[in-house]
């Protein structure tokens, strides 16, 4: 068994390696950046999906909202506003370094706040629903958001938006900058969530997962906890969205921002693959699934989606509780045997 001290050392070692990775493998930097994005996606999905047992298919909404809000702030904060006759999707804003980073920071934060606001409003409406009803209700969220964004000319409508060009001549290039930024967000998310799951709040989420009626009859305001959990997820998810929008440099409402079939599904599969309801599960799942996806794409182009589907199938059949869920169960089993022995 890994002791706590050892585990901490491993985390620090992992972080140290992560910091120098872009210099070791400069060709893989975008791939590595996406690994951190995927970790954020899986972790935030797991707050409700794993710890609280509320499967959400609509978390992609917050991702896209963060992306759009940030892009709009970046575009409009320092420029004189849009020319009415210009096509929004073709507007490319040139900012100097300080303007770029200020608008990026303000945009990211505003995106996160808007996402939290949406989570609270939507959550008050649909988080009162139990179990599967909530899941069904969230199915339409991402799709509806994509349709709405496609219809707003201010957001570039169906043609999408272009994020500002990264200022040249800086110490860190664009790729490096977003690698480290998203690394920091992922690490912050991880440690914050870890802390939350060890707290009273985290145990309340687990109680809702195990028996919501009981939790309610014991005086826990379950809907408030669910809304709070969803809001925290939305906050970090929106930050990830803001980052991804800038990494890609182009925002398409259906294919990128509110892309249910890619990011929206991956976040769920990654959390389940690694073991939902654990802190390390989503991290592990994100690394494995995204690496597999990229490998399949590189070597099995054309059959890559089939291979990915097969991988998911194997995991669901042989590790229905995920990789870490499997080990957790075995550990609990040996714990049970030990304490049975101690009793006699």
């Amino acid at each position, binding site marked *: 068994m890994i002791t706590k001290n050892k585990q901490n050392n491993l985390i620090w070692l992992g972080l140290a390696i992560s910091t120098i990775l872009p210099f070791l493998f400069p060709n893989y930097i975008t791939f590595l950046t996406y690994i951190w994005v995927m970790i954020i996606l899986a972790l935030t999905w797991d707050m409700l999906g794993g710890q609280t047992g509320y499967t959400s298919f609509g978390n992609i909404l917050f991702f896209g909202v963060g992306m759009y809000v940030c892009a709009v702030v970046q575009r409009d904060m320092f420029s004189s506003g849009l020319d009415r006759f210009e096509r929004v999707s073709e507007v490319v804003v040139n900012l100097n370094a300080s303007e770029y980073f200020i608008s990026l920071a303000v945009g990211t934060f505003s995106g996160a706040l808007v996402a939290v606001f949406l989570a609270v409003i939507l959550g008050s409406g649909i988080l009162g629903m139990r179990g599967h009803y909530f899941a069904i209700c969230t199915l339409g969220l991402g799709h509806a958001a994509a349709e709405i964004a496609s219809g707003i000319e201010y957001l570039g409508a169906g043609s999408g938006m272009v994020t500002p060009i990264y200022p040249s001549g800086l110490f860190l290039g664009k790729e490096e900058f977003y690698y480290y930024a998203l690394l920091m967000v992922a690490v912050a998310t991880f440690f914050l969530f870890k802390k939350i799951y060890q707290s*009273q709040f985290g145990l309340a989420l687990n109680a809702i997962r195990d028996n919501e009626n009981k939790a309610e009859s014991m005086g826990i305001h379950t809907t408030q906890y669910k809304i709070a959990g969803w809001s925290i997820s939305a906050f970090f998810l929106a930050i990830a969205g803001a980052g991804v929008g800038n990494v890609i440099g182009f925002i398409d409402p259906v294919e990128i921002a509110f892309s249910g079939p890619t990011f929206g599904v991956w976040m769920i599969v990654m959390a389940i693959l690694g073991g939902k309801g654990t802190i390390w599960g989503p991290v592990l799942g994100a690394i494995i699934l995204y690496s597999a996806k990229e490998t399949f794409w590189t070597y099995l182009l054309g059959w890559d989606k089939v291979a990915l589907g097969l991988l998911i199938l194997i995991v669901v059949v042989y590790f229905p509780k995920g990789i870490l869920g499997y080990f957790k169960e075995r550990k609990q089993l040996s714990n049970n045997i030990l304490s049975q022995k101690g009793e006699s």
Partner: protein
Amino acid sequence: MDLLSVNSVNKSYGGVVANTDVSLEVPEGKIVGVIGPNGSGKTTLFNSIVGHHPIDSGEIYFNNQEISRLTIPKIARMGMLRTFQQTHIYGKMTCVQNMQISSDIDANWKRIFSPFSSDVDDNADELLSFVGLYKKRFLLAGDLSFGQQKLLEFAMALMKKPRMLLLDEPTAGVNPTLINGLIDRLHQANEDMGITLLVIEHNMRVIMNLAEHIYCLANGTMLAEGDPDNIQNDQRVIDAYLGN
């Protein structure tokens, strides 16, 4: 003084009338029993009291406050808790965690990062020993036997330091040896911790030993009330149970 008083409560599910004009009083510090054949509306009455569903008419007062329209968590926070006929525990959490989460917590943002205090842990250990589950405290609650889960649920309710407990068939499905222990503990909770109890029970031996005053429901109406001896010899109660 009556801690709980239920006045003329009516509840029907569509065309099915579950409670008609049901009234009862539970004085503070007493143990009161509710008996009645299957389907007589006992659990519906419990659900009405704790706010599980809205009642059609009537009033329910707890501690002189009307609670007829409050939600479950609000009523629970006022100090009235219920346990379930089928055990309701948090199966994938250990017994200790089950106890911790049953302590008095609320959705306070300051507590979002803080673990449980050592007071809570001490209290949990104490109550787990009280119900005899101390050795099993690190097992998942879902792995306990049915009887042990009932004991755990009882301990969880005590964790909240309630003023009143509504117990829905605490001994159903529990083996006879454990039942005796459970009766003792219910008495102790009542006497030592000052918790008022309202108990639904089918086991006549248990309820006659436990309750000081018994209400008998049949077909959704209050058939009879009185002390255990009177109820046992009441012809209407015997008819309701055996059919006439």
